[in-house]
């Protein structure tokens, strides 16, 4: 399997690995999984409640290189975006950026799902 340069880079030097405080009211946590391969992905966002802008993002992924790269890229992309902008990130953009082969497209879908799950979690916790 040939991994693209970008995937290898994200895998060797992943950006934003770690955790945010999930109890923090301004943090949204998305935990998603891909049953086809057993990948588990956690993506967290820290939101500025006044501007609705994502000021920080962290991830932790247990899975293949493409899954790690996809989630690493996702955290890079959401930082500095508004929640609405982040919500509209498409997995196809991740596929293109990382040159993911067809068998790894589901990794990008997982990353898109993780972003959305984190946002949904943030929003639902704001309502409490």
């Amino acid at each position, binding site marked *: 399997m040939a991994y693209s340069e970008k995937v290898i880079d994200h895998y060797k030097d992943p950006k934003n690995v770690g955790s945010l405080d999930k109890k923090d009211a301004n943090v949204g946590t998305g*935990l*998603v*999984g891909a*049953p*086809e*391969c*057993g*990948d*588990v992905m*956690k993506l967290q966002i820290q939101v500025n409640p006044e501007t609705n802008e994502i000021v920080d993002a962290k991830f*932790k992924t*247990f899975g293949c290189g493409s899954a790690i790269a996809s989630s690493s890229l996702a955290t890079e992309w959401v930082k500095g975006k508004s929640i609405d902008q982040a919500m509209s990130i498409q997995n196809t953009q991740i596929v293109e950026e990382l040159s993911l082969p067809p068998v790894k497209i589901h990794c990008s879908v997982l990353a898109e799902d993780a972003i959305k799950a984190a946002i949904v979690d943030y929003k639902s916790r704001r309502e409490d």
Partner: protein
Amino acid sequence: MTSEQPACHKCELSLISHLFCFNCKKLQPFDDQIGLFEVMGIPIDYEINSEQLEEYYQRLSLELHPDFFEVAPKEEKRLSEKASVILNTAYNTLREPSSRAGYLLCLFTNDHKQNERSLPEGFLQEMFFLQESLDELLESSDSITLEKMKEELGTRHKEIEFSYAPLFKKFKEFPGNFNILQQLQTHLNAERYLRRLLERIPSADHILT
């Protein structure tokens, strides 16, 4: 559910495997849609006779060996290669409980929409937690705890595998009850995560201290 018994296109005797006639030793025409149970010549059921599967696999592997098709006409040679590939796919899929269950589930659900991502409540959170714990244990080379974790997860994995048979049996009694199939899907999904975890835990002698 039984597979129909087609006849050999040459000697017209009933075929066991749809790939090959054991009587006249003729390779049978087949297409890409051929069912895996039909390839092996065993009944379409979750419960299989493992010995029979093994025996048919050995016999068919031998009969389909490339050496026997070395001087065959080009088309037959090509077909024999395809037959070998599908034979191995069928054998590998059907001999292992989870892949066999997954294959049958595909056959039964067909067009029916299922929740493909369904998992037991809190399962994903637990898997994430276990993966993180595993990271720490591997880092510290805590072989005792690792061994214990492997044992516990191994037991859980086996329990899931044992859950397939009764569910398939129930589905036979209540065909069309897609709830049962949904339960199977959930179990199969859980199995895959557990298997990924287990694969990461090295055997005791591989844990460097």
